[in-house]
């Protein structure tokens, strides 16, 4: 039941909705040091996506972010195995500039795999405006690519001050604020209102009751993107939160698929 929404009724009855496919714009893949994941393989994640009505996942493999020996090859392998269900963000680890240069040089040869870049500044402990990120920003700006960046309130690496500065400096980048500057909800809303190239991604935001209503009330329904960090979080949990929020079903459609369809369409991916 969850709420009075017709969409909630459909998900409650069937676990999915044919009228409302879900596109998950923030995933990972594979094992990671901090958490036991029962479903971390590509196959297991596809199983979850089927279970929850997730049509497509855009992800960046943990190994691409944390294990330079493996790097982005893990992304390529998974997407080529499930080309109808997966796309990837090219991981940028600023501590390995030669690898970044090589990966960017090969980006256009892998457009069937990559739709943008992923930066994880808080974990790599390198600020967004550090010169080591410059080639990636420049590359994405020239091509109008999506860049999904982990963002968190108060972080000197990827907090609100850094986001505002880089959103203005690279206006052609579709800048997806992973976790919507978690905790700095007012700042996230203000930045998304101010910069047409900024979108708010909702992984971990949906754990808290209230921010989603705030973003929608701020007129940002068409700039919100569903995400789960899969295999971290069950998509049904996030979907259930969207269905619980006191917003309209039209907003829920925007969040769960329409906004992502538009962005992926601009990247040449039909969903």
């Amino acid at each position, binding site marked *: *039941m*969850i*709420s*009075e929404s017709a969409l*909630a009724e459909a*998900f*409650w009855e069937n*676990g999915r909705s044919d009228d409302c496919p879900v596109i998950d714009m923030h995933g990972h893949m594979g094992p990671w040091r*901090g*958490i*036991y*994941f*029962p*479903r971390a393989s590509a196959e*297991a*994640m596809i199983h*979850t996506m089927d*279970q*929850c009505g997730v049509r497509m996942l855009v992800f960046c493999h943990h190994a691409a972010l944390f294990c330079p020996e493996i790097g982005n090859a893990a992304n390529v392998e998974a997407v080529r195995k499930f080309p109808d269900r997966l796309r990837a963000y090219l991981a940028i680890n600023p501590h390995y500039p030669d690898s970044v240069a090589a990966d960017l040089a090969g980006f256009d040869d892998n457009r069937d795999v990559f739709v943008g870049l992923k930066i994880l500044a808080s974990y790599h402990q390198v600020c967004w405006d550090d010169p080591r990120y410059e080639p990636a920003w420049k590359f994405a700006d020239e091509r109008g690519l999506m860049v999904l960046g982990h963002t968190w309130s108060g972080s000197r690496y990827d907090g609100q001050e850094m986001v505002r500065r880089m959103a203005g400096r690279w206006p052609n980048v579709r800048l997806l604020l992973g976790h919507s500057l978690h*905790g700095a*909800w*007012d700042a996230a809303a203000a930045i998304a209102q101010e910069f047409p190239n900024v979108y708010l991604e909702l992984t*971990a935001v*949906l*754990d*808290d*009751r*209230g*921010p989603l*209503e*705030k973003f929608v*009330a701020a007129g940002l329904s068409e700039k919100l993107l569903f995400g*789960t960090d*899969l*295999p*971290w*979080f*069950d*998509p*049904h*949990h*996030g*979907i*259930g*939160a969207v*269905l*619980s*929020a006191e917003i309209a079903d039209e907003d829920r459609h925007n969040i769960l698929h329409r906004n992502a369809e538009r962005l992926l369409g601009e990247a040449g991916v039909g969903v």
Partner: protein
Amino acid sequence: MRFFDCNCCIGLPANPPSPAAGASPGVSAGELLAAMDRAGIDRALPWHVAQHDQDPLTGNDLLAEAIAAQERLVGVWSLLPPQTGELGDVGEWFQRAASAGVRACRAFPEASRYLLRAEVFEEVFEAMTAARWPLLLSLARGVTWDQVYDLLGEFPELTVILCDHGSWGADRYFRPLLQRRPNVYVEIGGYTLDGGIEDFVARYGPGRMLFGSNFPACYHGGMMLALAHAEISDADKQAIAAGNLERLLGEVKL
């Protein structure tokens, strides 16, 4: 499907966790019931935030007043060390709790500055063990995993419900306890781990997991939808959603 929420609270917090979030920082018992009606939740086991933010005894009184005549709400009271005399006679304190519709306890050792160990709570926890009163411990409110392990080492038969263990899957912390302590239960309000419910039930059965929402900090519907469509049997879902808590509270001796 019948839902019995073991992890929610009422009352206004002293420091709302996110004043810019747009949501009400707290709810009354009436507002909780209205939200439960909207979501489709039958019963709940609320505590009062003043038990943590102000003091346990004031919060206990506010909780008792709020749930009086509310048949769908079963209360939780917060403990203090009996040595200071604030609880009065321990046996009488539990009788007053039972008369107020209370069937479980919480402990906030960090906020109320005490130790969660036998030197302090031997009389209380032995009484709770004998009478099957559950103790709810929130990992987000000043209880550490080391404390939980030490406590269950001293009181291995105590019924403990582990709450608010965070959205990062905490299986590596709680699974050893499930294997060694027969009366440990895991509340799933924050257990958003993909495939976690299925993996847990496959290893431990459905009897050790309890539905919780952490409302009003979190939405009701997130874990409701995850549980409703988990790949486990309908009977297992119902046990987790309500049956296990009904059984636990039904075993409480008054």
